[in-house]
């Protein structure tokens, strides 16, 4: 069953996790932009045994790489994001950005969520400036950078609109502009498309893919949408149910990273989705 997909002309390079650890990975020598090293996160609760959200996570993301994490809901994907952003500390193990351990919120990461988190009382331009206001840069430069980022996200005509005047897709683009304005080394996207209708979603995925491709920023996308992961990333990490572990890693090596709509039309992309589908055992499971 599984073999049928990963035969000779396999579009995907499979790396079942246990073996991958035995063989040193043929990664680039450069320091990874983001690395998780044996990270476990437990949450204290009222019972004696703490709740383990994720366990023994180890992975590296190279600079400029676009990696997606897929997994069932509740498997700890957002926990991974919080630990990368420095909002939460791992219970065990180490999270590092450019080789430096993450000890708290820092200037290297920008994140965005399913909710746009735009401040409703600020114009779009002032929202994009928001992240820069904690930085020691002048007002004029802040404005200039915000305007540049808005232009990159094709929102320059809406700079002086308020969030309620924009559609859901435009609001997410504004949130991406705000995220990129701080010029982060790593961008974390936590299901940024899941609150949108199917059509807006496709267009926004393409818009994001272009913008991210043009900026060359390292990106970690968290999603439960398998086709989205295949359409947008260089590599996919599959997480298991609770406690979250990485059960599989998939190198996509597909063209059109800047155009998910074109990529989704490729037969190899469909095969990759089918393979992911199987590795999550979706066929045998119930809701």
């Amino acid at each position, binding site marked *: 069953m599984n073999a049928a997909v990963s035969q000779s002309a396999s579009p995907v390079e499979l790396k079942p996790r246990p073996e991958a650890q035995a063989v040193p990975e043929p990664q680039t020598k450069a320091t990874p932009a983001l690395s998780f090293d044996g990270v476990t996160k437990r949450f204290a609760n009222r019972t004696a045994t703490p709740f383990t959200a994720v366990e023994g996570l180890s992975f590296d993301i190279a600079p400029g790489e676009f990696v997606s994490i897929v997994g069932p809901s509740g498997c700890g994907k957002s926990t991974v994001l919080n630990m990368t952003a420095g*909002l939460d500390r791992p219970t065990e193990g180490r999270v590092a950005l450019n080789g430096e351990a993450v000890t708290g919120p820092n200037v290297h990461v920008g*994140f965005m969520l399913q909710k746009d988190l735009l401040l*409703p009382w*600020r114009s779009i331009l002032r929202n994009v400036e928001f992240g820069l*206001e*904690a930085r020691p840069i002048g007002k004029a430069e802040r404005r200039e950078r915000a305007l540049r980022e808005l232009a990159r996200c*094709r929102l320059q005509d809406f700079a002086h609109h308020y969030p309620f005047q924009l*559609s859901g897709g435009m609001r997410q683009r504004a949130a991406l502009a705000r995220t990129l304005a701080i010029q982060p080394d790593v961008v974390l996207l936590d299901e940024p498309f899941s609150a949108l*209708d199917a*059509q807006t979603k496709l267009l926004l995925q393409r818009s994001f893919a272009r913008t991210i491709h043009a900026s060359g920023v390292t990106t970690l996308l968290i999603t439960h949408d398998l086709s989205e992961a295949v359409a947008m990333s260089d590599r996919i990490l599959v997480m298991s149910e609770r406690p979250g572990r990485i059960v599989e890693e998939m190198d996509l090596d597909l063209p059109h990273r800047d155009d998910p709509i074109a990529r989704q039309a490729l037969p190899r992309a469909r095969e990759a989705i089918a393979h992911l589908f199987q590795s999550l055992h979706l066929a045998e499971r119930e809701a």
Partner: protein
Amino acid sequence: MTSSKAAAHPGPVPVVAPPGTETVRLAWASSLALPAATLLVAVLVLVAWQYLPPALGVPRFIIPTMTDMAAEMGRMWRQEDLLTHLLSTASMAAIGFVAGGILGAGCGYALGLSPLWEKVLSPYILALQIAPKVAFAPLFIMWFGYNAWPKLIVTVLVVFFPILVNVLQSMKTTDRDLVNLARAYSMTRAQIFWKVLFPASMPNLLAGLRIGATLAVIGVTVGELVGGSIGLGYLITYGEGQANTAMVFDAIVLLTVIGIALYWMVAAAEARILHYLPKVAG
């Protein structure tokens, strides 16, 4: 299924659609019809007030007619120094409202920033919130004497709690993800407060102020009723002593006008401050 409509316009289409001519004409018609209907109700009530009680044989010292009240208003203006009383009550209500608002909002933000104190004090806040504050008025008179302080303190107390509770509510319910976003941008606690929590509390603060504006008049009135020698509340007790119902009615009308003026000022401020919220119909 609500999103299906948005799917029809995937491009950059702002939500605000230009109104069609049909809706314009409808809006224009109703924009005149509604105030006209409201005015008609007022006229009907005033006419009924003028002619119904006499027709039913109700004596004028029980329910004075409109013309009696107007005449009494003129007499009070000339002989009872009405302007002084009116200004005294209006200024006391305004001062009490502002002071109670600042104190209530200040305590709301302070408690919102220190969850520990909030937990420690919350039962007392609840108890004080439920306690009828105006009932303290005689106590304050015994403590502070027959001067402006008792009514001012009652007003401040009455205004304080709804504003405190509203602000505190906002501080506790502001989206944690918004705060986390600010944290992720390495903002300090002060920056998070001034850039996120404080502006996010504006709708709640203004709702509290709106309630406070109406309560302020009640606070002052009770203070003046219980132990004053000036103000519209005093005129009410004075009129009662003289069995002058027209005077009592007139004082009540003027108190209502003060309340409406305060409320209207808050509503006007609210319309300016909350311009970023999508307008609700009406």
